[in-house]
């Protein structure tokens, strides 16, 4: 059966549109909040109030307050920023570095490929937590560290995908034609192959973006991410879970915020992946 007789099925699938729509709405919502939270938050998220600790959700504090008497809603809104400060640069870094590594390994093949892949293996096997502990200890907790650790642990994943795609392209006749006429290897990589593995790169980027949010939250939860007192969601879940029984809202608010953002991102990524892979 060939493509001419049978037009591609479901060129636009309604499922994609609904899921994409919901996902985009969620992600855009949090992106807007990340920028505009100072105008949206009813209180200063850092403001402590010893007289109003653990206030349950109600009129004064829609989502209650935490152990320091800080407003949970305000912190939840403010918490969108740290996550969105980490995930995009971490993803970008991982995708750029991973794409380059994958392209180099895939295009050259042979010994270069073997060495690169073994190094990547080592990076994968090397527990990211050790790297995080080290970096945090060396330079204090900061967004940069978080970005580096997450990007570093994603590079091998991106590189492997791009390499696999590159290996497929490399065998194609147009690359051989380019080699036959003597294109230098950087030109093969960037001019010939890269445009044709762009779908892989985009798919990786969306997947890694969702994973980066996940990873940022987890590392913050483990105490390896954000500076102390940050309204970051993962850190908030970790900080407040001691009071889970007494003040569940302090945990549930950031937990649900994480869940909504990662789910939104997953929906977007899934839909986009579906489209790109269909094309």
């Amino acid at each position, binding site marked *: 059966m060939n493509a001419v007789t049978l037009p591609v099925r*479901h060129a636009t*699938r309604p*499922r994609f549109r609904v*899921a994409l729509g919901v996902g985009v709405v969620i992600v855009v919502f949090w992106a807007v909040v990340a920028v505009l939270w100072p105008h949206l938050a009813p209180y200063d998220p850092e403001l402590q109030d010893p007289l109003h600790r653990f206030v349950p959700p109600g009129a004064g504090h829609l989502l209650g307050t935490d152990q320091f008497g800080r407003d949970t809603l305000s912190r939840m809104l403010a918490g969108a920023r740290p996550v969105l400060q980490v995930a995009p640069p971490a993803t970008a870094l991982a995708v750029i570095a991973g794409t380059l590594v994958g392209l180099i390994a895939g295009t050259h093949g042979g010994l270069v490929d073997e060495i690169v892949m*073994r*190094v990547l*293996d*080592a990076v*994968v*096997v*090397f*527990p*990211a*937590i*050790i*790297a995080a*502990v*080290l970096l945090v*200890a*060396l330079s204090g907790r900061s967004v940069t560290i978080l970005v580096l650790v997450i990007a570093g642990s994603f590079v091998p994943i991106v590189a492997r995908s791009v390499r696999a795609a590159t290996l497929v392209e490399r065998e194609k006749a147009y690359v051989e034609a380019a080699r036959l006429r003597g294109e230098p290897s950087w030109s093969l990589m960037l001019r010939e192959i890269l445009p044709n593995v762009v779908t892989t790169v985009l798919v990786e980027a969306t997947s890694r973006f*969702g994973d980066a949010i*996940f990873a940022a*939250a*987890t590392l913050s*939860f*483990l105490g390896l991410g954000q500076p102390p007192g940050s309204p970051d969601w*993962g850190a908030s*879940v*970790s900080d407040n*879970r001691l009071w*889970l*029984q007494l003040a*569940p809202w302090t*945990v*549930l608010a950031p*937990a649900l915020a*994480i*869940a909504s953002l*990662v*789910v939104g*991102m*997953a*929906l977007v990524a*899934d839909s986009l992946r579906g489209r790109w892979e269909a094309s």
Partner: protein
Amino acid sequence: MRRFLLRRLAATPLTLLAVSVLVFTATELIPGDVARTILGREASDATVARLRIQLGLDRPVATRYADWLEGFVTGRWGDSTLLRVPVRDLVLTRLGDSLLLGALAFVLLVPVALTLGLVAGVNHDHPVDRILSVSGLTLGAIPEFVTGVILLVVFAVKLRWFPASAQAPEGAALATRLGHLLLPALSLVLLCTGYVARHVRASTVAAVESPYARATELRGFTRGQMVRRHVLRNSTIPATSALGVQLQFLLGGLVAVELLFNYPGIGALLLQSATEKDLPTLQASAMVLGVLYMLIVLAADVAYRLLDPRIRLGAVAS
């Protein structure tokens, strides 16, 4: 197949060597001093210095690495600097505990994910598929510590159906231990089901739409017969590699879950020894995890190769 195995196994020690160097370097760079940690902040600088010498920490980095490496390779893993217990027992016990948790999660994960993926794939583009896919996606996107916290509150604290701690009393029967492990395993399962189910779904769709499945329809088979006889196997074989990936993911998820459920597993040990610069323990944990990790990858590949007759019987280059 044999060549594939040999090549993969040959690469393993090299990778581990690289990892051990990385771990060693990282540990060197982490600030702090084990001797100070052992003696506390009140001990005088002189006492700390004496202990450093006693622990051999005053020797050059290269010497210490070489010693460690020699010991590790020859099976002398040494004692934990901080806990002064044999590292091998410590690490292997912890690993065993982690594996028990991982195995339980895996045992729960496989049938659930396969069923969901198959159901979604066979009914692809129907509402059933949409609901399953989106909920799988959703659950898989939520970090395990979030689901874990919620499970804890609901089932351990409010309903008291399950213990809050994953750690069973010493000498408890396996059933009791598994009961303790159910909640943490569940939070791992929730994390991974979506991913595996998606892979199964994708390969199921591919199998359902494949020429051979279509050919069976043309031969007059019912859809049910087609699914049972041809789709099932063809969609689960590719899923083995997804399961491999998820097993690695399970390992990664162990740290948070072990902490949350107070389970003394290898993940928690790794983290603890990293922060505390307990080098012998850290190295051994990293190595053991590395071996495990690579074995899982290998096992997934081998399983895939064994299950798929095309690769097993050498039609497709490995």
